[in-house]
């Protein structure tokens, strides 16, 4: 192995960041993996199934954690954020802040603390569809497997969890910690957030009951989600017998996200399958402009559409209103049949696209974004790299491939300097 000249910093502990870190560390390079949230896994850890194989993402994540945990070259900092970056390729000074989780590594996730905790907070893991206690574990497969306290949701005078904990794992006095490091290369694997559907005026999200977005649908389908995998709509927990999927909700739209996120068509087809399996009586309507299922995904799209209860309607939904008893009315033109349609369904899923997590973020000068907020190549500062959706919207498969490439580029920077 070449002489070790510097470390690689990977920002973001989702599937891309973990993949980049592993690829570099498994050939012997030092990696620091920084994740903002208390657990690794990112968006992927909230998915129910991957397309096209319809297998659970937690399975692949678990394999990655298993590789990551014993690897001596990776230092993982969760609940941590990069404050500043300066320097040049081969020599970047980075300041990292680790926020307190108020729970230390002695935690054995015995759940005694949640039994006594009196406060609740919205679960961001479930996109606000349900609540957790103020002391919580992000999900059952969290890595590190440890509780976290949301102090904003706590009563400051309460210390019931501390008293309940038999392992001395809770320290309410824990303080933020700053670490200064020097690295040779930096990989942004900061991923994405679902586009804020509240901004799409005509599609009713946040105003019309039972209009959800596609990431919420993943949680509803998930066995560990707010409905334990039952196909229940949020307003009244009624079984959803009819669901309309609204494709390109805020995507390919100059008023919202001008680009195609490349995954929403396949995600909706996949979710249509979830719904059909969870409720064999369900009728699914997918309103689309065109179905984008490139390459081998064409087979997947064709297969899903064989189900006669998955009805494809060419024409974008442009109006969503409240119907009777919590139902939702969608309006579109059925282009292939040449007429306007107005359809009342139990629930509507908006196939919102991916917005770069970096959009609107306060970034160090060395990082350049393109016009859509994705990390752009920086020729002056070639030690700043990106991987996965931080670079461009795509599926998990292409993100992992991209991450391998990013690891190699990072190694080149380390060795080349």
């Amino acid at each position, binding site marked *: 192995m070449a002489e070790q000249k510097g470390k690689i910093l990977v920002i973001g502990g989702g599937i891309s960041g973990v993949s980049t870190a592993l690829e570099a560390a498994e050939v012997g390079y030092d990696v620091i993996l920084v994740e903002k949230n208390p657990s690794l896994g990112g968006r992927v850890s909230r998915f129910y199934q991957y397309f096209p194989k319809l297998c659970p993402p937690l399975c692949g994540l678990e394999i990655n954690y298993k590789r990551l945990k014993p690897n001596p070259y990776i230092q993982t900092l969760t609940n941590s954020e990069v404050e500043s970056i300066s320097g040049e390729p081969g020599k970047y000074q980075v300041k990292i802040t680790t926020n307190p989780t108020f729970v230390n590594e002695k935690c054995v996730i015995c759940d005694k603390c949640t039994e006594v905790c009196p406060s609740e907070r919205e679960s961001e893991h479930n996109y606000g569809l349900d609540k957790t206690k103020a002391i919580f574990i992000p999900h059952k497969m969290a890595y590190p497997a440890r509780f976290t306290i949301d102090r904003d949701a706590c009563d400051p005078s309460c210390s019931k969890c501390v008293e309940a904990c038999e392992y001395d794992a809770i320290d309410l006095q824990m303080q933020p910690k700053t670490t200064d490091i020097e690295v040779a290369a930096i990989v942004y694997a900061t991923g994405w957030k679902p586009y804020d559907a509240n901004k799409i005026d*005509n599609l009713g999200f946040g105003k019309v009951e039972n209009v959800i977005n596609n990431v919420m649908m993943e949680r509803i389908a998930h066995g560990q989600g707010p409905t334990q995998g039952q196909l229940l709509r949020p307003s009244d927990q009624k079984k959803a017998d009819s669901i309309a999927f609204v494709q*390109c909700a805020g995507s*390919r*739209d*100059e*008023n*919202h996200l001008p680009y195609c996120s490349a995954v929403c068509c396949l995600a909706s087809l996949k979710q249509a399958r979830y719904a059909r399996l969870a409720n064999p009586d369900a009728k699914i309507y997918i309103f689309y*402009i065109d179905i984008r299922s490139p390459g081998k995904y064409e087979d997947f799209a064709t297969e899903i559409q064989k189900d006669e209860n998955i009805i494809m309607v060419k*024409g*974008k*939904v*442009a*109006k969503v209103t409240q119907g009777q008893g919590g139902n939702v009315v969608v*309006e*579109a*033109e059925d*282009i292939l049949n*040449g*007429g*306007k349609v107005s359809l009342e369904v139990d629930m509507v899923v908006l196939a919102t696209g991916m917005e770069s997590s970096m959009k609107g973020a306060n970034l160090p000068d060395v990082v350049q974004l393109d016009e859509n907020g994705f990390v752009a190549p920086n020729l002056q500062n070639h030690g700043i790299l990106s991987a996965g959706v931080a670079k461009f919207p795509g599926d998990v498969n292409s993100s992992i491939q991209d991450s391998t490439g990013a690891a190699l580029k990072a190694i080149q920077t380390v060795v080349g300097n």
Partner: protein
Amino acid sequence: MSDRVLINADLKFVEGVMKAGGEDLNKCYQCSTCTVVCPLTPEGAPFPRKEMIAAQWGIKDKLIKSMDPWLCFHCNDCSEQCPRGAKPGDVMAAIRNMIIANVAVPSFLGKLTQSAGGALGLLLFPIILIAAVIFMVNGGEMAFLDNPVIDFHKNMISQLAIEMIYIPALFFGIITGLLGVKNLIAGLSETYPKTDKGEALVPAIIGTVKDILSHKKFRECGVNQSRNIAHMFLFYAFIGLAITTAGVTGIYYINLFAGSNVVTPTPLPFFHPIKIIGNVSALAASIGILLIVYRRLTAENVGNTVAFDWIFIVNILLIVATGILAQTVRVAGSQASYFIYYCHLVLVFYLFMYMPHSKFGHMFYRTAALVYSRYSGREKSIGMTFLEGKQQEQLEESDKVA
């Protein structure tokens, strides 16, 4: 519908639509947001999504025989919500301009009126004609300029001379307009044969006139709804001015044939009902046209204004301005009022003569299309798609040849 259709793409037509105001046509990717948000489209075979693709593909034959551009009132709800900035509202307006250019009789007039250069060329005709008539009736002398008493009709050009010019111009406008309407309806009836959902002709006409008088469709618009106010001012002003003109002419001839002033002669006193109608109409026209100009220049959602629109707007604006100015300057005692009145005459002549070829033609064509829409049953969602019919036969023929 058959599986295979042969498209006769007319690329010149596509270019024409883009030049006539639909410049962003090619941005459309057929999501049909426009059709869903359109407050005016029938439910069956709705617009404007299908017009967008037909215009992109250059299916001229179908588009100029389509009713739907006339059912569109350029509300711009579609353009506002279009995710691509393709501005379907402007494209529909451009298609209307193209239809006028295609059905107008004689057809060269329909094309010349589309551009500022063409319009100026056409303006030369009344500029020369009216100047020539003034010269002739004054025996080639401009002696009236030295007369301290300013009277347009007694000194510069007689009422009779005006009528000799304007009645033919008006007839030309009306007759070519009706011939244009005949062309339009011929196309529409090919696309929309009368169905039993349609109304009889007389109720269709009455219904349409009622809708026009109340500006019903205009008021169903979403974002650009307030333009109906400007249009209404101008619309009723035109009716008022038509009544005034007919009244004044009527008085002149009654007195002429009676040999004496059996009714109050012109110029009418200020409180004469016809005079009041005339002045109120002039005021309404001023308000209407100024509102239109103001909104076209400042409001965001009025859409694209092309030469074809501006020529008509400026024509009316100048007619109103010169009309008011001529009277004011005359009362002030300046000889300049003759020139202003001359300009006024030229502009009015343009409006009359090229009525069906300019944007004013919408008076003929939209009215006719709306009547036919009720008559054929289009309003009740009887529609058409663009790819049916003739092309199939042509495809079969081309197969035979192959």
